């Protein structure tokens, strides 16, 4: 078989796999819709405000409830020191 045929076959397989990934994503979105609805209902019922991603500090556990100086309030001259602080981007448009 010609090398170009092999290459196009390889590209074809990869493109098919990519299409399969998109199909999987669409299927998962439909399948998980009830989970999302259930979680959203829980957020409404318990009046939650944040995702539970980083539990190491107050301002990383509830970033939407933290004020801008929260990472530096532990003591005077204190620098923000939790690793997840470097992953969270600055919050915009906060009071």
């Amino acid at each position, binding site marked *: 078989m010609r090398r170009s045929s092999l290459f196009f076959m390889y590209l074809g397989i990869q493109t098919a796999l*990519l299409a399969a990934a998109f199909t999987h*994503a669409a299927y998962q*979105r439909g399948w998980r819709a009830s989970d999302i609805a259930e*979680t959203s209902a829980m957020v409404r019922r318990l009046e939650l405000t944040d*995702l539970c991603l980083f539990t190491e500090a107050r301002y990383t556990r509830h970033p939407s*409830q933290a004020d801008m100086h929260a990472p530096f*309030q532990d003591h005077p001259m204190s620098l923000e020191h939790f690793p997840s602080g470097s992953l*969270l981007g600055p919050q915009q448009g906060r009071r």
Partner: protein
Amino acid sequence: MTVGMRIWIEKQRNIIDFTLSSLARRKGKNIALLLVYTLLVFLLASVMFFTHALRKEASLILQGAPEVVVQRMAAGRHELVPGRYLNAIRGIRGVSEVHGRVWGYYYDAVMSANYTLMVPRDVSVGEGYIAVGQGISRSRFAYAGDMLSFRQYDGEPMVLTISEVISPGSELVSSDLILISERDFRKLFGMAEGMFTDIVLTVRNAKEVAMVAGKVQKLLPDTRPILKSEILRTYDTIFDWRSGLIVVILSSAVLAFVIFAWDKASGLSAEERKEIGILKAIGWETADVLLMKFWEGTVVSLSSFLAGVLFAYIHVFFTDVVLFEQVLKGWSTLYPTFKLVPYVSVYQMATLFFLTVVPYTVATIIPSWRAATIDPDSVMRS
């Protein structure tokens, strides 16, 4: 298909055949390039898929968040709110409902973990009982019917029975959550009756939310209202892949790759120069050599791009971002295990393509042109 078109296709295929043979002759070097390129696409795509899926899920889930949360601030710190604040807010026109939220944090010295304790308004948890999130259940090996011991504010122990473990489907918001009755909460932390952690209020007309928030701040200057739109915006910007540490690390990786690609393309080996010299001597035009270089770039870029994207998809949505796990966990001992819903779009693909293929093409275009214009006579003599 016309004869002319068939000839054109055959010419392209011949050039691709030749390009692939030429790449195979320098196997080691080209495999290294493919691997580095695939790795770069994989990293960028993983970050993009993860952050986008997380932000999308947050925006859907947090639609149910309170319309306005009012905090009280004292000396730059969050302070408990007395009941009279509720009455004051109730008097503001446009406010339909006001109530206090009772919640807080508890540091568990046994697990070195922080829990979020919350009093549900619907009184779904009886006195002496708690409902715990999956993360707590997992780390404490505690299930429905088991008892957990807490240390009260005065040092006295408090033993509470787990009535239920919150469903794993909602772990993204409830992993570290403990639902507790109001009486137990106040007893645990010594919080006086009539004091609340913060206030939640509902506004009759959605268009008036900002105005009501302004009135609250004017009436009670030591408070800080947080609107639902701000909560949603926080999660929209918080994991933005264009900000924070991620972009610093990834931009240096892209830069290193561009240097690598440029170096590889410009540092033509004597063998490659000879090859181009011979091709031109036997009648290849500069355009043909350029076409060969174009296909060389396409073969490398497309193969790496598609492979990188596929691996990233598997990494994020099948292995739960296993490689980033340590970074994301940080110092937390409690971390939710959640399966993200895959939100991928053509826009993301286009952005990724622009971020990876364009730098490679730009880095290799000038060296390719220089290679194509080599004088065959001088190359073959040297």
